C-alpha cells in the first residue's frame, strides 16, 4: 500500500511529467490559454492515459512478449492509443453525451500527446505490474493536469502585463513555465549546486 502511495506521490509531484520529464509539452503550451480549457484537456488526458496504460500493459505481456516481437512496441502502442482514442470518442458520444461535450474537442489531440505514449513505455521499462501501471498512468496524468491548470492560471494573469515586444506570446510563457519548474524542483529535494 505504501508503495502505491509513494508511486502516486512521486508521479504527481516529484517526477511531474511536464516540469521534470518534459512529456506533453505541446498541449501544455497549446491549450493553456484559459484555466477552464486547460482543465478540460487535463481531464481528457487523465481519462485516456489511465485506460491506455491498462490496455498497453495487456497487449505487451499477452501478445508481444509471447510472440517475441517486443521490438514492435512503438508501432503497436501508437496504434493502440490512436484506436483507443477513437473508441473512447465514439463511446462517449453515444453513451455519455455530457462528458463528450466537455472533453470531445480535446480527444483527437491526445493521439499525438507524447505523455500517453511515454507513460505506456515507461510502465514496461520500469517493470510495473498491472495495478502499478494503471496507478502510474492515472497519477502521471493528474500531475500533468495540475501543471497545465497552474500554468493556465499564470498565463491568465500574464495577459494583463506588458512585456517587451519580442517577449510577447510564447517566450514569456516559457520563462513563466521555467519559474514554475523551479518551484516544482523543490519537490525533488535537489539543490542547485
Amino acid at each position, binding site marked *: 500500500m505504501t508503495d502505491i502511495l509513494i508511486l502516486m506521490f512521486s508521479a504527481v509531484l516529484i517526477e511531474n511529467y511536464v*516540469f*521534470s*520529464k*518534459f*512529456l*506533453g*509539452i*505541446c498541449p501544455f*503550451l497549446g491549450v493553456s490559454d484559459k484555466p477552464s480549457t486547460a482543465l478540460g484537456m487535463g481531464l481528457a488526458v487523465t481519462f485516456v492515459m489511465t485506460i491506455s496504460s491498462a490496455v498497453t500493459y495487456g497487449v505487451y505481456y499477452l501478445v508481444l512478449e509471447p510472440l517475441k516481437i517486443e*521490438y*514492435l*512496441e*512503438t*508501432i503497436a502502442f*501508437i*496504434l493502440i492509443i*490512436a484506436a483507443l482514442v477513437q473508441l473512447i470518442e465514439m463511446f462517449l458520444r453515444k453513451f455519455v453525451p455530457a462528458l463528450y461535450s466537455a472533453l470531445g474537442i480535446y480527444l483527437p489531440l491526445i*493521439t*499525438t*500527446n*507524447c505523455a500517453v*505514449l*511515454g507513460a505506456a*513505455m*515507461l510502465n514496461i*521499462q520500469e517493470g510495473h505490474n498491472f495495478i502499478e501501471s494503471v496507478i502510474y498512468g492515472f497519477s502521471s496524468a493528474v500531475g500533468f493536469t495540475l501543471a497545465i491548470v497552474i500554468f493556465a492560471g499564470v498565463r491568465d494573469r500574464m495577459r494583463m502585463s506588458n512585456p*517587451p*515586444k*519580442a*517577449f*510577447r*506570446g*510564447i*517566450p*514569456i*510563457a*516559457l*520563462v513563466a*513555465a*521555467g*519559474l514554475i*519548474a*523551479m518551484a*516544482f*524542483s523543490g519537490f525533488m529535494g*535537489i539543490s*542547485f*549546486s
Partner: protein
Amino acid sequence: MAGKKISAQFKEGILTNNPVFVQLLGMCSTLAITTTVTNALGMGLSVTAVLICSNILISALRKIIPNQIRIASYIVIISGFVTVVEMLMKAYTPELSKSLGLFIPLIVVNCIILARAEAFASKNAVLPSIIDGVAMGIGYTVALILLAFIRELFGSGTLLGYSVFGDSYQPVSMLVSPAGAFITLGFIIAAVQKILLRKKDRDFRKQHESGDGSDD
C-alpha cells in the same frame, strides 16, 4: 530558378519557419535532451533521418493513401522508420541511445514529422519533399544545438564533454535543470522574434520607400 527555390526552402526551414523557434513543434524532445551538445546532435540527426525517409515514402504514396485514413497511415509509416532508427542506435551507438532513452521512440509523436507529412509531403512530389525534409531537419538540428550549446557551455562548463573554462569555473547548474531549459528556450525564441520583427519592419519600410520612388 530551381536553385533559388531550393535556397528559399532552406531559408524557411532554418530561420523564417524554423520548426522549433517559429512553429514551436517538437518541444518535448527539444527541452528534454538539450543538456549536452552530443545528445542534441544525435537527436537532431535521428529526427532528420526519420523526417527524410517518411517524407519520401509519404509523398511517393500520396495518390494511393485514401484521404480518410491518411493520418493513421502516416503514423504507421513514421513509427516503422522510428523503430528502424531505434534499433540501429541501440546496436551502433549504445551510449547515445541510453542517454536519449525514451525520447527516441517518442520521435513517433514528434509533431514536426507529422506536420511536415500533412503540410508538405502529402501535397508535393518526391524531390521537393526530400529537400523539405533536409531543410526542416537541419532547422531542427540547428535549434537543438544552439540550445544545447548555451546550456552545456554555461551549465556544466564543457563542450562535447571537454572542459572549456577550466577547473575554477563555477557552473550555472540551473541551466542544466528543467527550469533552465524553459527559460533558455524562452530567451532564444524572444531573440528570434526580435530578428524577424526587425526584418519585417525593414521590408515594410523598403516597400514604402520604393512605392514613393515610383510616384516621383
